[in-house]
């Protein structure tokens, strides 16, 4: 059974090829069946693989397909590698992916480019599966770039609006900055260790490199560069909020559940390397912490329902990075999984709300919608609780694991823990601000909204609700993957600390209620202070990062491109041409045809020659 994992990426690839070769001539019915069905088949295979993997004793398994290339000792194969980590990933990708595909057949039903949408979606799932199944970093890189391409195509799916194109290009180019760092990391790893096969490379690194030496630190930093690009962490997080320009199912699948967590996967996959570079690993934790706080502040100030969720995603991936950085490898992957459930639920719920309200995205033009949109209300209630780590929802277990592990880090642990807990407090505020503003209070627009109907929309939502509530009880078979690391089996934490961890998110919910649910406290009054207005502006702009990058990189590049559009090098050759033309004209002048002129110039030349001879 395990040898059949090559079928996993094959179905989406076939789906992509059929939809692409049909050139959009397929009717929506068959196109939807092919698009969603291919992922369904993959999920079926993944489930069978999971069963036989768990029965076979969690041994990792490699399935070679073909040798990609073989040049001078560089011989990456198209080989698939399955272990507990890959298993969790493929189940999330095909499982959540399938639900989102089914949902999309309803959500995109009226779109004229229906089949192009599923074409790109299938290509995405294909690339994402290769990313997590590749046994070497080059195949991983193929998937990595492939998902980036699909992300670009799908953000810019509605290409009529130039803003969507801008958002798509921004996503691609910003992540490519990280990708390039990662590529350089691959060059260095190959030059030093002679292989890009992940397991061989990690063994070689462990054997040859001392803990804390410079080479593992440099390579880990370069891989981290790739990870922060893809996973929208500081300093490359700016693309994700704009990526919300894409259709909402895309935001759920690519920009919440799967692709943006690829960086987390990469670091977990190469965790041995990070353990060899403790400083870089600690840096991962701090990157995660700072990102999760910054994004949390910004999420509190956004009005667009999808942008709130986007900043929340950045913030939650920050938790995963924090987990990676403190050595809670399986905690981070666990949070990746539960986050995929509840954030997919929130995005799909948001999609249902947006569709019901005729593409309204401003939460302050909604209000009191709990009666009109009961399913959406339920989505946000359950998804919101899981997101704020309400006890015994899925998010509670995973966030708990990460924060407890953070506390156990020597020295800086208490700060990492405190930051994470404060972040959880903000999570409560921004999540329930959205919730109360949209579903409570008084209706501020779209008074006659009716909820979108359809089983293909409702069913995925209900399944995701169940997963968000109970997903925390799913055991993840990761011990064999991270066994030799510093994994903490027994956590010791005082009841007080644990109480704080549970209470702060609830306090956040309470504050949201006071401001937005009940109106006891007034936002207007708060905003009348100049300092809060300034802070609001600053946070709302994403801490001014976009403006900073425009100033540092984009504008200089555009300026240079504009002033040198004609290519300055050409001026040199134009000058040569002009000089030779001038010389030609000068010499033409001397051809006067007058004998006296020739005689005079000969005499002058003679005198000049003699003068030179005498003087030298």
């Amino acid at each position: 059974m395990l040898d059949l994992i090559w079928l996993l990426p094959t179905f989406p690839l076939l789906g992509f090829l059929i939809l692409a070769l049909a050139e959009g001539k397929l009717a929506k019915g068959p196109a939807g069946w092919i698009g969603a069905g291919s992922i369904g088949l993959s999920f079926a295979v993944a489930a069978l693989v999971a069963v036989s993997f768990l029965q076979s004793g969690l041994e990792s398994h490699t399935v070679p397909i073909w040798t990609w290339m073989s040049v001078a000792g560089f011989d990456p194969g198209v080989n698939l590698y399955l272990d507990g980590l890959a298993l969790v990933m493929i189940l999330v990708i095909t499982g959540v992916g399938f639900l989102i595909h089914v949902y999309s057949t309803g959500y995109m039903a009226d779109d004229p480019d229906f089949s192009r949408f599923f074409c790109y979606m299938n290509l995405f799932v294909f690339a994402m599966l290769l990313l997590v199944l590749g046994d070497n970093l080059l195949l991983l890189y193929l998937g990595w770039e492939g998902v980036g391409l699909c992300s670009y195509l799908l953000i810019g799916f509605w290409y009529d609006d130039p803003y969507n194109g801008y958002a798509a290009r921004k996503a691609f180019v910003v992540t490519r900055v990280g990708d390039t760092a990662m590529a350089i990391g691959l060059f260095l790893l190959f030059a030093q260790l002679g292989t890009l096969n992940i397991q061989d490379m990690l063994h070689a690194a462990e054997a040859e490199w001392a803990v804390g030496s410079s080479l593992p630190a440099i390579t880990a930093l370069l891989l981290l560069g790739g990870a922060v690009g893809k996973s929208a962490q500081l300093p490359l997080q700016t693309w994700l909020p704009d990526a919300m320009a894409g259709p909402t199912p895309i935001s759920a699948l690519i920009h919440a559940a799967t692709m943006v967590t690829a960086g987390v996967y990469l670091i977990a996959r190469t965790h041995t390397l990070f353990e060899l570079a403790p400083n870089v690993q600690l840096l991962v934790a701090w990157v995660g912490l700072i990102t999760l706080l910054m994004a949390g502040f910004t999420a509190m100030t956004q009005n667009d329902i999808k942008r709130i969720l986007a900043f929340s995603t950045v913030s939650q991936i920050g938790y995963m990075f924090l987990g990676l950085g403190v050595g809670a490898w399986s905690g981070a992957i666990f949070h990746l999984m539960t986050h995929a459930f509840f954030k997919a639920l929130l995005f799909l719920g948001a999609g249902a709300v947006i569709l019901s309200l005729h593409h309204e995205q401003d939460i302050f033009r909604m209000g009191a919608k709990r009666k009109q949109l009961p399913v959406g209300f339920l989505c946000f209630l359950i998804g919101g609780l899981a997101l704020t780590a309400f006890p015994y929802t899925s998010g509670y277990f995973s966030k708990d694991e990460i924060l407890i592990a953070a506390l156990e880090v020597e020295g800086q642990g208490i700060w990492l823990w405190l930051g994470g807990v404060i972040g959880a407090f903000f999570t409560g505020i921004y999540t329930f601000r959205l919730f109360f503003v949209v579903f409570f209070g008084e209706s501020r627009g779209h008074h006659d909204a009716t909820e979108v109907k359809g089983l293909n929309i409702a069913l995925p939502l209900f399944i995701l609700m169940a997963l968000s509530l109970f997903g925390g009880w799913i055991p993840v078979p990761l011990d064999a993957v991270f066994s030799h690391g510093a994994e903490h089996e027994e956590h010791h934490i005082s009841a007080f600390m644990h109480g704080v961890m549970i209470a702060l998110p609830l306090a956040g919910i309470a504050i949201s209620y006071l401001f937005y649910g009940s109106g006891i406290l007034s936002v207007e009054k708060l905003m009348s202070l100049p300092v809060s207005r300034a802070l609001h502006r600053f946070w709302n702009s994403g801490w001014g990062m976009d403006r900073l990058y425009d100033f540092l990189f984009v504008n200089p590049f555009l300026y240079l491109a504009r002033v040198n559009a004609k290519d300055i090098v050409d001026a040199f050759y134009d000058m040569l041409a002009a000089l030779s033309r001038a010389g030609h004209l000068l010499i033409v002048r001397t051809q006067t045809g007058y004998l006296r002129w020739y005689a005079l110039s000969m005499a002058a030349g003679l005198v000049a020659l003699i003068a030179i001879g005498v003087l030298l």
Partner: protein
Amino acid sequence: MILTLLVALLFVGGLLAWFSERINPALPRWIALAVLAIELLLMLSLLGADSVNGPENGWLAAYNHAWLPRFGISLQFAADGFSLLLLLLTAFLGIVAVGSAWSEITKRAGFFYFNLLWTLAGVVGIFTALDLFLFFFFWEVMLIPMYFIIAIWGHENKFYAAKKFFIFTQVSGLIMLVSIVVLAWFHYLQFGFFSFAYQDLLNVRMNRNMEMWVMLGFFIGFATKLPSVPFHNWLPDAHSQAPSAGSIILAGVLLKTGAYGLVRFAVPLFPNAAAEFAPFAMTLAAISILYCAKVAFAQSDIKRLIAYTSVSHMGFVTLGVYAWNELALQGAVMTMLAHGLSSAALFMLAGALQHRIHTRNMHEMGGFWGRVPRMSAVALFFSIAALGMPGLGNFIGEFLVLLGAFQANHVLTIISAFGLIFASVYSLWVIQKIFHGKYSDSAFDSSRLLDLDNREMAFYAAMMAGLVWMGVYPQSFLDLSAPTLQALLESQAGAAAVGALQP
């Protein structure tokens, strides 16, 4: 024998095409197509050939006949796996060029196909000639018909572009000729007889300064053709003015003669000078990659833009050649092949657009996806290939170049790798300006904006299949060029260069 046949067939076919126009104006294109199809088949027949003159040197076919024995000049042709790959590319893109000219070229079609076939004859000669005098002969043969193609069938500014093309290549060619003669002269001094044969000239030893000067002569000749900064300025003009078929041959094939020359001659003939020069060449490569990517982004003329991206991509070839290890060289060869296909396809698309709506200005376009979805998808595919998407040929080439070059020079490789970011900036910008955004037809006649027909689509599909093949199973190509490159590396000349290149 087969190699002389390859060259002769193109010369004769060209004359036939020219004269056949009097019988029927549709005849020349059929003759050109038939000749190129036969060429392709002949070349494919070499694929299974055993190497001649012993297995170790890897020549799949060879021909030698004295020409001017007094000066040691002979008609020496030979092809190994490396030449064969480029020959196949030449014939394939030749067919594509004929396909693109099929309905575009109506004026003096006979003479057009004559020039096209003669240019290709020059190219085939370059890829097979092992006598440097003969090589130079073909170098010139390639040039003049191309001059006519630009000057007669070009666009609004064709005479300027044709002249610029001619002067750049002619001047650099003359510098190379001087170097060839000096090299032969040193052979005479050292061995007592003249020879222009490649194998003989490999043994010539010169003092350090002389070797550097002679090597530079070759380098300038090839770097102009490639082209590399600062010798690239003929290319944007030539490309933007040439008809599509001319652009296809220029970008897909002619540029590769420069790269071929670097690998075959400029480095092996002068191992020490090349090793000493390598950091400079790699610096020029890095500048080409980044500078031309930046200039490309600023263009509004699509063909100029693609021309600058060509310079940028060929920078990876230079980088790979002067890193001079197997990874980097294989990468350079893959880049030559993949860029041959992707740039030819992009120029063909630009030509198809110009043929339809009579403009190359991107600012007059936009939102074409809804009108011409096929063309848009094809353009997207080749743009994605050009920006180095894994799974397609260009990625294999550029990645191997960088992987190999990293072992030779960390800093320049890292700088060059930023080209990957720049490539995504300009590639996606083209897609945005032409195919995305709001549709507007204020600048052209909307009814003429038709999607690709099946004949056009067949050519693009063939090129797409080629790029996928290169990207998914590059081994088919790597295996062909490997013996040549390994022999070059292992030869004493190569070994000296490698030793000197170590940081």
